[in-house]
């Protein structure tokens, strides 16, 4: 399976990379770990004329932590390095869980934090091999005007299936984007457009440079649970991340609560209802209520291989309840 021909550039600064990407517009595509991108090129799903390699851009591979500023992760840090970092292991075990649930060991070593966040949406029609796809009309994502998931729909219903996004959303992460207009810092959820066809809200010339995670407060616990068929390689068919912080004292009052999901919509979901738990005691009834809210918000479609849509939907409440209990347990201890 040969890669198509393309030009290759390896700029040596972030500014250079952004200018190059801006000047070439839609023709150019950045390459970080390359594990998803090269597959899309081999499968003839993307057709860039130029790849802009971010491997030579300095300062994108740093992991820094301070109690004041929290964690700062360069976009080119590999998932394996993130998971092996002593500070991350100690203070953000949820990121270790999420990073080590991606693909395989090799893909974790090659894939980057930035690339994982900015991954394209998945769909069992769009992601078929070029040969198998020939039997189908091109879908919205391939420039056609049909969706094979919802045949009457005028939009693309591919699913966002990143593993790091829900974990980072639950932790309240923000991102820095570099671009022609300078650097811009935004809440992580604004990176996701909600458009299955073009899921990442970066303009040509804009690059994700850094991810910031607030300092881990005391008495907090965070957990990522991933539903999939095999314990390796698979993308999530449902992913649930929960982050809880408890008030001081024994009464178990919740100070902050966040819940995020993946693989059940066109973008990762940060569930607003979780915020209602703040200041309240976390009872069984409230855990069930949160699980119900997540169930109502989740919208799995028949766009991923593996388990049925019905099963994935029925697992939402189960996974939310499990994740909340585990997060609570780790916040207490």
């Amino acid at each position, binding site marked *: 399976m040969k890669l*198509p021909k393309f030009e290759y550039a390896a700029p040596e600064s972030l500014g250079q990379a952004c200018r190059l990407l801006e000047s070439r517009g839609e023709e150019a595509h950045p390459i970080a770990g390359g594990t998803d991108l*090269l597959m899309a090129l081999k499968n003839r799903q993307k057709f860039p004329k130029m790849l802009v390699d971010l491997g030579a851009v300095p300062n994108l591979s740093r992991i820094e932590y301070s109690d004041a500023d929290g964690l700062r992760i360069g976009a080119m840090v590999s998932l*394996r390095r993130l998971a092996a970092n002593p500070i991350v292991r100690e203070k953000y075990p949820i990121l270790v869980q999420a990073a080590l649930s991606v693909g395989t060991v090799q893909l974790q070593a*090659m894939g980057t934090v930035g690339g994982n966040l900015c991954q394209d949406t998945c769909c069992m029609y769009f992601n078929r091999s070029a040969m198998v796809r020939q039997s189908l009309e091109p879908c919205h994502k391939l420039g056609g005007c049909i969706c094979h998931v919802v045949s009457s729909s005028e939009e693309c219903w591919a699913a966002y299936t990143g593993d790091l996004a829900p974990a980072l959303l639950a932790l309240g992460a923000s991102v820095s984007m570099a671009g022609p207009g300078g650097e811009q810092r935004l809440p992580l959820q604004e990176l996701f457009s909600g458009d299955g066809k073009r899921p990442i809200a970066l303009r040509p010339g804009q690059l994700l440079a850094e991810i910031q995670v607030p300092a881990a407060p005391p008495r907090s616990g965070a957990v990522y649970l991933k539903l999939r068929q095999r314990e390796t390689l698979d993308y999530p068919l449902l992913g649930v991340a929960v982050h809880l912080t408890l008030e001081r004292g024994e009464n178990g009052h919740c100070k902050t609560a966040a819940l995020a999901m993946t693989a059940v919509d066109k973008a990762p979901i940060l569930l607003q209802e979780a915020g209602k738990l703040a200041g309240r005691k976390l009872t069984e009834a409230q855990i069930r209520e949160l699980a119900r809210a997540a169930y109502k918000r989740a919208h799995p479609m028949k766009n991923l291989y593996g388990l049925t849509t019905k099963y994935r939907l029925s697992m939402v409440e189960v996974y939310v309840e499990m994740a909340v209990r585990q997060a609570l347990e780790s916040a207490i201890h």
Partner: protein
Amino acid sequence: MDKTVRININRESYELELEPNQTLLDLLREQLGMTGTKKGCEIGACGACTVIIDGEPALSCMTLALRCRGKEVITIEGMAENGRLHPLQEMAIEHGAVQCGYCTPGWLLSAKVLLDNNPSPTLDEVRSAISGNICRCTGYQKIEESILAAAGRSLPAPAPEGESSPRV
């Protein structure tokens, strides 16, 4: 851009003329004749093409050869040093951890990365380290045994009562 790239492969420096769309797998197999690295799925799923780049496991089918500029690549051809097989290779032979042999170079290199970082792994750690290497003969148990045996051998103190290979 200068297309001449220097890459260290198996402790030897190569100066190569590369095309942007050439994968490391193609470079190794087609240009350098190192066919020990296997071409499996070619979409990054099976692990047959695993090599080590700067100490980390990598899929050569998903790596642009140009991106290996200045890096150190170890393939299965470089696993034996000074004419001596790596303990992992010796144990693979001793435990019969090879059936059709197609996945063997890949998992050996994945296991080498594991042992380089963690000389005495648990069975779970072994399983996790080779979870990106698919064996369709499904001979996983002997693979696991042979990796554990190789780890046992590299422990500083000999095992008690002459046991040289720990049982699973």
